[in-house]
């Protein structure tokens, strides 16, 4: 069904639903982008706080070269399952302990990297200085997977999709009611126009609906019908006169004496015109 042949109700509902859908999609896209950026920042902040806490607890293990204690400190990462690996290095870069315990992942020598947290290779990795009394005792390196982001987004998308579905249903139900505000006056006008067209009945009038523009349109339509109806009446009257004239002319053409012509004329005038009295005189101009 093309747009031209589609009923106005469907067109209006399609327009409303498409507008709502587009607005929701744009809004959702903006929210997702905002969430993505803020959640990444939040994740960095959380991992950094965790890293700082573990680093603060690692100072003695580094200062007194105690790998057992260092391993024990790193084992606290168990509480955060998204931390997939952590390594504690002495200040010269040699590994003192790693998490998971005994994991051979990573170098036993700390790679030359600046302190800080960054997203790379599908992980959030952090290089955290271990400082005590203003002195650097070593370096904590940790890696967090992005499962937290994926879990968050899964939840976000599920909730978002549910909200969109509910909104679409609500928009459909509301638009089905509200489209009548526009379609009903137009349909009423169309029905009246159709009736005029089919029955040539110019006496019908469209009901004036609420709303400024529809009121003006209906008034103009009704006014046009009134004008057409008036013109139609005038035309009909003139046609009947012409018909009378035609009949008189034809009747007089068949008569040869003046009194007969006069009688015919008076007869027609008496029959076809609302006359109480009529007379015809012959004027003879004096020679």
């Amino acid at each position, binding site marked *: 069904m093309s747009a031209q042949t589609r009923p106005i109700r469907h067109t209006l509902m399609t327009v409303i639903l498409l507008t709502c859908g587009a607005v929701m999609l744009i809004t959702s896209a903006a929210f997702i982008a905002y969430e993505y950026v803020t959640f990444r920042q939040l994740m960095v902040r959380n991992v950094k706080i965790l890293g700082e806490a573990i680093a603060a607890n690692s100072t003695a293990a580094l200062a007194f070269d105690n790998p057992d*204690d260092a391993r024990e400190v790193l084992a606290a990462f168990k509480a955060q399952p998204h931390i997939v690996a952590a390594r504690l290095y002495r200040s010269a870069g040699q590994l003192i302990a790693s998490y998971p315990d005994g994991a051979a992942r990573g170098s036993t020598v700390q790679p030359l990297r600046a302190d800080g947290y960054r997203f790379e290779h599908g992980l959030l990795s952090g290089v955290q200085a271990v400082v005590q009394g203003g002195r650097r005792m070593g370096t904590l390196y940790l890696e967090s997977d992005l499962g937290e982001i994926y879990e968050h987004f899964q939840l976000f998308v599920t909730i978002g999709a549910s909200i969109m579905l509910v909104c679409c249903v609500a928009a459909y139900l509301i638009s089905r009611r509200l489209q009548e505000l526009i379609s009903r006056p137009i349909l009423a006008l169309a029905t009246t126009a159709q009736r005029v067209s089919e029955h040539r009945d110019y006496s019908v009038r469209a009901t004036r609906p609420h709303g400024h523009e529809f009121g003006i349109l209906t008034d103009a339509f009704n006014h046009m019908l009134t004008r057409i109806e008036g013109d139609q009446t005038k035309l009909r009257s003139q046609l009947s006169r012409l018909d009378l004239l035609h009949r008189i002319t034809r009747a007089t053409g068949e008569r040869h004496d003046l009194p007969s012509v006069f009688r015919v004329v008076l007869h027609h005038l008496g029959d076809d015109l609302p006359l109480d009295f009529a007379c015809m005189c012959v004027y003879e101009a004096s020679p």
Partner: protein
Amino acid sequence: MGLLRNTAARHLWRRLALLLIAGGLLGAAAPVSEYQLKAVFLFNFAQFVEWPPAALPLENAPFVIGVLGKDPFGAELDEVVRGETVNRHPLAVVRYHSVAEVRDCQILFIAASELPQLEGILTTLKGRSILTVTDAESPAVRGVMIALVRQDNRIRLRIDLQATKTSNLTISSKLLRPAEIVASGS
């Protein structure tokens, strides 16, 4: 001055780091390496122990690490503390021949040579806020606040909390974590 200080600090920490690595690999290492590590430990105690204000040195006075008895460190301890500060106090190493000489001192390492006089030393120091440390391995070291003991080819800390409390010293929980806590007399 700042540049010199930073350069000195960087140099020192590079050296300390190397010493710590050496400590990790110590095992039956040479005695010199062991004392290099112990010197670093002595220096690090200053980071993890809190002294009462009255026990801290006056402004511009040095924070003193004392060595009582036959000094096993040689030049290592001086090397470790050179250019370093604790709470803006420069660090200094002072050697004492007898406990009577110990005056303004914050950390006192009691050498193994003083083991026979240990009880008398501790009695003299009783009530003073001096962190006593020893590496003498003997049951007689009871009452010394921190003992550096060899265990599984590593140097471990044994801390007598009661002794530190008596001397109004507060040991950071971070230092207590890797240490073995003992009670006086155990």
